[in-house]
């Protein structure tokens, strides 16, 4: 499947923006889970780690949609 614009109430938006929002929600959920187990305390520079996780999630979604 290739990328197609997403019709958002009559406005066509780039699919990347929707995937970014989706990846952000996934990252928030992952961060909640990590906070529940206190995993982020055992990680150097937690915000950098969360950003890297967000990049991984977003890239996986994009590559999955591009395939």
């Amino acid at each position, binding site marked *: 499947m*290739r*990328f*197609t*614009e997403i019709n958002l109430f009559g406005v066509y938006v*780039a699919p*990347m923006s929707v995937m970014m929002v989706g990846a952000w929600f996934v990252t928030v959920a992952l961060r909640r889970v990590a906070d529940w187990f206190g995993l982020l305390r*055992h*990680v*150097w*520079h937690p915000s*950098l*780690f969360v*950003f*890297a*996780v967000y*990049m*991984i999630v*977003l*890239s*996986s979604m*994009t*590559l999955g949609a*591009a395939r």
Partner: protein
Amino acid sequence: MADTETQARRVKPEEQPAPDWRTAPAGPDPVRLSEPVTPARAGRHWRIIPVLITLATIAIAVPLGWAMWDAYMGAPWTRDGTVRAYVVTMAPEVAGRIVELPIVDNQFVRKGDLLVTIDPTNFRIAVSLGEAAVQQAEANAQNAQREAERRLKLTTLAVTVEDQQTHQPTRSRPKPSISKPWPTWTRRGSTSSARRSALR
């Protein structure tokens, strides 16, 4: 202790070399010097794993992000093609005077909306002419049929065999010339009405 500290602080802004300042508090209070060193050394062993975890995550994220950039920005897709029209030139299929213009400038129109009405008089005349030609051809055909039937009933005393054969409606006889350019007009029926509705 407080006295030595204040002395050391007072000494520090002056041009005193560093070793002199470091040895001054080390003498009276060796515990204070060794105290921050011990957790730092113990923490350094403990902190190497979190750093490795974060770096490994970044090492995964960077090539994935690179691949995502290639897949999203490098691949051609319909977003890269645009159609723009600020002024669209239009032309009708048939020429004629415009008798009605129900739209105004910059009006939003949908597919199927009426833009202009072309004077239908000439086309109505053409339809009437075509229908008249059809009726004429039908009358001619009826007339010929009557003539042929009449000659068939007569005996050879009244009409010659040649005349009978001339008026005989045979297939081999060439069709009237009117049927060549307008084949639908010679036959009365659905084709004629279809043409009329198409012209209307």
